[in-house]
């Protein structure tokens, strides 16, 4: 089908085109408690085609994207490509070049999906639950992907990837009251013992939640964010350095300027093409552009942007990269320093919401800890709401860092004067 598609595109009126074909092989297992509920497997291929149509004066470049299913007949392919080319001529975006002259065959991965699935199942079956604890349910996905990107400017690259996902729910109970916690682990290579241990650690949080008291209302709290949502907190900065957001006029980062205040910790953010254990180690992005290392912020100062070739061209960036992996360097305070004064630490939100445009962030507290003059105790309920325009002035990060899939981030962020809704 790909050969036919390529020759149809070559003979079409498209000024340029790109074909992105991803074949995914998966095996999946679904458990209720420790009992197998269902097993699944799949082999699917998705082929996305983008056609580009230039205006006569080459000032504009329109595009339209369509999925070409493997079961399309030649007539259907031609019809879809013609429709896309027709639509693209009415899309008047400024002209931009495609990635050119990239060739790579990649190496297939020697992965046996059944063996990988069994390995993770074994690790999950080994999870030790105490008297008032249980594994409620879990879902395991192991995926192997082959990606082939081909365009009309001599790009022909193939690369392979492997990733796993475990979504686990645990329960802990006390005197007839049962609570649950959910964790979504994504990784490329994790030892069985690490998987077992990460799930068992959920029981510790579960026990704390059982003892939790309702969160108290506080309009001027010192808040520590320390859960997995720290990643989303730092995505505010990758969002504001994104070329598309810069072009749209909604990004606030400026080259050689700081986004953070004088009293805030200096922000250093690096993009890394590869990171051990990450599920995001593809050699190329979906434009066929090689993924590169890059420093976005150095000691607080914005040094570079990132994004698609199209948007990079629009904002006159000569060289660009997409994001695979991110390292946010640690800050000035140790976790112990952060906990010297009264604080409210949120380890789990129901859903952490961060809107990079308005800068609003927060969510309902599913588990946290509060320290007051009487001691430290777990809390639940209520919510925090804050805005980056305020916290950028004096936010601090922990010295300690940890890896969450494709991010290495400070273990905690310390924010002053945050509004907490509670009882």
């Amino acid at each position: 089908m790909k050969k036919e598609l390529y020759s149809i595109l070559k003979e079409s009126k498209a000024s340029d085109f790109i074909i992105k074909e991803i074949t995914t092989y998966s095996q999946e297992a679904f458990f209720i408690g420790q009992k197998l509920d269902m097993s699944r497997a799949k082999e699917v291929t998705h082929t996305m085609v983008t056609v580009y149509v230039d205006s006569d004066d080459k000032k504009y470049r329109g595009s339209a994207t369509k999925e070409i299913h493997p079961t399309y007949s030649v007539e259907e392919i031609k019809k879809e490509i013609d429709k896309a080319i027709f639509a693209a001529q009415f899309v008047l975006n400024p002209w931009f070049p495609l990635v050119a002259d990239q060739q790579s065959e990649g190496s297939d991965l020697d992965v046996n999906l059944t063996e990988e699935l069994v390995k993770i199942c074994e690790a999950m079956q080994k999870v030790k639950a105490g008297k008032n604890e249980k594994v409620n349910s879990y879902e395991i996905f192991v995926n192997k992907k082959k990606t082939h990107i081909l365009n009309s400017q001599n790009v022909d690259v193939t690369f392979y990837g492997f990733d796993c996902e475990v979504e686990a729910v645990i329960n802990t109970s006390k005197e007839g009251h049962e609570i649950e916690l959910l964790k979504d682990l994504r990784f490329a290579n994790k030892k069985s013992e690490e998987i077992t241990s990460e799930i068992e650690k959920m029981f510790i949080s579960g026990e704390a939640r059982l003892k939790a008291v309702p969160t108290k209302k506080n309009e001027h709290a010192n808040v520590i964010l320390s859960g997995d949502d720290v990643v989303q907190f730092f995505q505010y900065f990758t969002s504001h350095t994104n070329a598309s957001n810069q072009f749209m006029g909604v990004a606030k980062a400026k080259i050689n300027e700081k986004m953070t205040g004088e009293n805030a910790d200096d922000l250093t953010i690096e993009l890394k093409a590869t990171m051990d254990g990450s599920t995001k180690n593809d050699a190329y992005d979906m434009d066929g552009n090689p993924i590169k290392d890059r420093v976005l912020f150095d000691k607080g100062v914005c040094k570079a942007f990132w994004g698609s070739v199209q948007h990079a061209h629009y904002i006159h960036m000569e060289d660009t990269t997409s994001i695979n992996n991110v390292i946010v360097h640690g800050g000035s305070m140790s976790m112990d320093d952060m906990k010297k004064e009264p604080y409210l630490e949120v380890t789990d939100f129901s859903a952490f919401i961060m809107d990079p445009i308005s800068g609003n962030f927060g969510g309902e507290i599913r588990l946290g800890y509060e320290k007051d003059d009487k001691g430290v105790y777990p809390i639940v309920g209520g919510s925090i709401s804050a805005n980056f325009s305020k916290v950028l002035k004096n936010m601090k990060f922990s010295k300690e860092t940890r890896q969450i899939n494709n991010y290495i981030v400070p273990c905690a962020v310390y924010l002053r004067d945050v509004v907490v809704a509670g009882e």
Partner: protein
Amino acid sequence: MQVKMSEYLIEIKPKIKELITLLDNEFEYVSVLCTDVSGTSYRVGQRQTNVGDYGFGERGFVVRVYENGSYCEYSFNECEDVKACAKTIASVLKDELRALEKLGVSKMESPLIHEEEITESMVNEIEVNPEEMSAEDILAHLKKISDAGAKHEEVIEFQAAMQFAHVNKMFLSDKKDLMQSYAYAEGMAAAIGTNGEKTEVAYESFSGLKGAEILDEMDNKVEKIIQDLNDKLNAEAVVPGMYDVITTPEVTGLIAHEAFGHGVEMDMFVKERALAKDYIGKQVASDITSMRDGALSASQVSSYLFDDEGTLGSDTTIIDHGTLVTGISDILSAMRLNTKPTGNGKRESFERKAYTRMTNTLFTTGTDSLEDMIASIEHGYLLEGMDSGMEDPKHWGIQCVVAMGREIKDGKLTGKVVAPVTLTGYVPDLLKSISMISNDFAMFGSGACGKGHKEWVKVSDGGPYLKCKVRLG
């Protein structure tokens, strides 16, 4: 005009029947869901225009088989040679199951599906077929909307978007032969603006079992979006606390969906993950409150003949005058709970597992007028606009982020606006506090719903204005 059934599904049907016959030799139960969903999305802004494929487009197959006391599934989207395909499916599924059995894992009790003989099909109607409308005309219409919004000084960007979907599905087994073809459209218009200090977004969404006629609905909303944007730019933070509030139909839908809808998905009953299981037959809401869900409950983006497991859609009364009557279910959960499936087994696509999912979820109307409801509040807010929500069926917690609250004092809107507003609380407290319900009604079907943090499907939700008591932060 009537939507046209997928020619591809009609053409492939004999091949799939042959596949079922071949797999019948290997397995006790075999069914195949075949999908052919197409569509196009258009987005026009002041700086950039996009034409792309519909986000939920798909064409493929999922085979479900019963093997050695368990259900197994195989998803694929190429099948040149039926015999080879059947061989691959049988060997991959058996090998995977054997490898798991070898580990010594126990299996959930899974009764064998017994189906009744049924052959049915459905096609719906739309006014203007977007597939027959020129991309030039659609883009020009959206550009007109974008330009009308962008002319305002405070606006940085104004985007107008429209997408349409043509859903075709076929479910075949030894006893079932079901086909459906329906179309729906979604629209969105959004303003991003600043007053120098703050940057905010305001938007309106549109959806329905419609065609390109949805574009005309969008024309009239530009000025309201600009007004909302200015209200948000000038909004203050809400003082955290408990308030009497009135929810607009959009926020009512968000509450129906997040607060209670997820909690009555009966696959969560099987996993003991939903408190609602223990409250069947008990009062969970005020006497005036009733709630429904089903493919037949409303005419919206999740209205279909049959679900992704071949069960016919229905109209389920979940809460009847305050009492929890039943939940909604997929077929496997219903068999395990010894209940009747309600036609709520839905998949993100042919590639994903089916779970119990909502369809069109709503609170039913009451007899109050909005004016009387506002007049009854001493100090509270009229909550408008849906941003996001998160379910918590195990603990009946609720988190809904709404766009803004319009202050009500001494029975009148003061003109003061608070934003953003996070609504939290304990679901039964919220539902039992519902004291007035309007006679208005609207449904909203843009966007998608996840289960946990994945498995996105199309749903709609809505209802009337509700007066209740909630915690705002």
